[in-house]
């Protein structure tokens, strides 16, 4: 009789929110990484939404298929829109896959595999950063920079015919500032992600997580890395496609 009553009481208390244990069932550092990423998501969405608002309110805008039609680092200067940024997107998605494979190897406590997948992720990140450096350098050589735009002759290439020069100049100024600020902020995230990945890989090599008995740290940096990929998905759509 009394045991039956106890069992019933215990059953009531075993729901996730009845206290005594974390309702989220997640380690503290991982939960804090999620909340940090949430705040970072707000920062990036504020930037992207202000870009949207400025673009909506502009009478004209430089056409993405005309601004980004070259493949920097090669001799292709015209007629290849989206090719270079497609490569960048592929590199970043690929590095996300190697990251999630590192997490998967961590679940199996396979140190060697974790190291190789982490090195793959770092290489992917460095390749993405190099591509971005080429892209920035190309735009800079055309005359774009923070509050700097190309001369009137070059500017005309980026617009459909018949748009007055004053409108071209105003929207190009906004485009240049927003492009370098937003891709720069994203690139800075990629850069810090690469640094964090390198630190974690060194720790894996030193055997820190093997001693600790879990590769949970790989999951935490993995969350950050996927977030960087997630932001790029939006930057890609709103700067290169729309």
């Amino acid at each position, binding site marked *: 009789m009394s045991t039956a009553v106890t069992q019933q009481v215990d*059953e009531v208390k*075993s*729901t*996730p*929110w009845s206290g005594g244990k974390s*309702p*989220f*069932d*997640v380690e503290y550092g991982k*939960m804090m990484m*999620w909340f940090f*990423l*949430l705040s970072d*998501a*707000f920062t990036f*969405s*504020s930037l992207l*939404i*202000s870009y*949207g*608002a*400025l*673009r*909506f*309110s*502009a*009478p004209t805008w430089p056409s993405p*298929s005309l601004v980004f039609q070259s493949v920097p680092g090669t001799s292709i200067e015209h007629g290849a*829109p*989206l090719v270079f940024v*497609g490569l960048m*997107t*592929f590199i970043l*998605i*690929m590095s*996300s*896959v190697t*990251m*999630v*494979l590192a*997490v*998967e190897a961590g*679940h199996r406590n396979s140190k060697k595999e974790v190291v190789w997948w982490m090195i793959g992720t770092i290489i992917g990140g460095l390749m993405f950063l190099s591509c971005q450096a080429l892209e920035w350098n190309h735009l800079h050589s055309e005359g774009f920079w923070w509050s700097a735009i190309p001369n009137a002759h070059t500017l005309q290439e980026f617009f459909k015919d018949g748009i007055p020069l004053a409108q071209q100049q105003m929207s190009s100024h906004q485009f240049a500032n927003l492009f370098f600020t937003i891709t720069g902020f994203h690139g800075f995230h990629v850069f810090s992600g690469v640094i964090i990945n390198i630190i974690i890989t060194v720790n894996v090599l030193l055997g820190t997580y093997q001693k600790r008995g879990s590769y949970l740290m790989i*999951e935490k940096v*993995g*969350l950050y890395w*996927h*977030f960087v*990929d*997630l932001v790029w*998905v*939006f930057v890609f*759509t709103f700067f290169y*496609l*729309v």
Partner: protein
Amino acid sequence: MSSETTHGHAAGAEHEEHDTMTKGRIWKVFFILLGITCIEFIIALWLAPTYHWPSHWINPIYIVLTLFKAFYIVAYFMHLKFERVGLALAIIVPILFIIGLILVLTNESHYWIDLRL
């Protein structure tokens, strides 16, 4: 998901069987992401210029496809689909506030363009 939790506890102290990312699933998600990106490229490079689709048609398509990609990254790569419902809600519900900012600023930008023209 909460029913799964209570079930896991009823079964005893044994670690709850966790549905998680396997290698096969990782590559499946990768090909979905790659496929969606390819669709975006086909629209941007071929369909839109050939059939002269207006931008107020294509842009919503791009945004929906982007949200699909975002779902796959967050749910599978970031593992949120396999976390407790409470954690998923704590992350996703605040994100919905962004919709408010989008509505306010698009409305405002229509006012700005009227001022400029």
